């Protein structure tokens, strides 16, 4: 018994040291997932982000058709990397609507002219209000919304080529 107690501090130290070493060696996960997946899209009404495309409201997302809602910005580098995948998704018939976060009409227009326009509508979120209401924490992020306006899926970071098939399937399942 007294032997056990003598060795206990060392055992505790070794356990703690290994736990901390493991924690340091593990790559940090800094993605914050939205807790709104499974809930209804919060009520919103956003003005058009650029001329030539309509704005966006929560009512538009509850008309029986699923959507991919893409949070992007002209000042966001990874959004440029994502553009070809959005083009593929749009050509596959996925209805994509955009939310331009903290952006100006002319810079949004220049971004679309340069990297293509997969969007049917783009709402302007000038103070990240909708971004916060959706539990999103950066650009680019996308949400699959079903026909009733329920959030089904969140993707964080740019959509990569290997993600496209999964998103097409998720949108199909959201009908």
């Amino acid at each position, binding site marked *: 018994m007294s032997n056990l107690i003598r060795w206990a501090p060392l055992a505790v130290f070794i356990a703690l040291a290994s736990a901390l070493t493991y924690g340091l060696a593990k790559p940090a996960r*800094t993605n*914050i*997932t*939205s*807790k*709104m997946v499974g809930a209804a899209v919060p009520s919103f009404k956003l003005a058009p982000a650029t001329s030539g495309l309509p704005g966006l409201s929560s009512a538009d997302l509850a008309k029986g058709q699923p959507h991919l809602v893409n949070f992007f*910005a002209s*000042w*966001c*580098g990874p959004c440029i990397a994502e553009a070809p995948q959005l083009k593929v998704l749009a050509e596959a018939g996925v209805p994509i609507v955009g939310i331009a*976060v*903290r*952006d*100006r009409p002319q*810079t949004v227009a220049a971004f679309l002219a340069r990297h293509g326009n997969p969007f049917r509508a783009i709402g302007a979120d*000038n*103070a*990240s*209000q909708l*971004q*916060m*209401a*959706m*539990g999103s*924490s*950066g650009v680019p992020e996308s949400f699959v919304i079903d026909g009733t306006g329920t959030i089904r899926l969140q993707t964080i970071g740019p959509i990569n080529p290997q993600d496209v098939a999964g998103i097409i399937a998720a949108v199909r399942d959201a009908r």
Partner: protein
Amino acid sequence: MRPLILGAALLLTSAVLADSGLPPAPLSDTQLADPRQEAAAQTLMETIRCLVCQGQSIADSNAELAGDMRALIRQRIAAGEKPAAVRAWLVRRYGAWVSYEPPLDRVTWLLWAAPALFLVAGLFLARRSFRPRQRR
């Protein structure tokens, strides 16, 4: 040479941490007119975690999103909402992670109970060590 390296480093960081060209939201750095509301908003901001820097409160963070979060909090407090309700609104969206005030629940009860547990363990140890030695 050194200024060159510094300049290159600065350029690189600015490219990674892209900022929008829009000015900060009106209430992100402007105090509310009512000092009591401003104090309530400030107290809340100090216990909400920045989503970008993740180690800072939004009261300290210079990230644009933190500014937008401060503006949101001031707007809601100014509209008469209770700080607890605003915190609940954010926790509903980002999880308990966003709040620096851990709630008492199934995950965190040990955290709250730890001081009492340590005190009991300490008392137990002290009682043992101060017990008079038995003569053999």
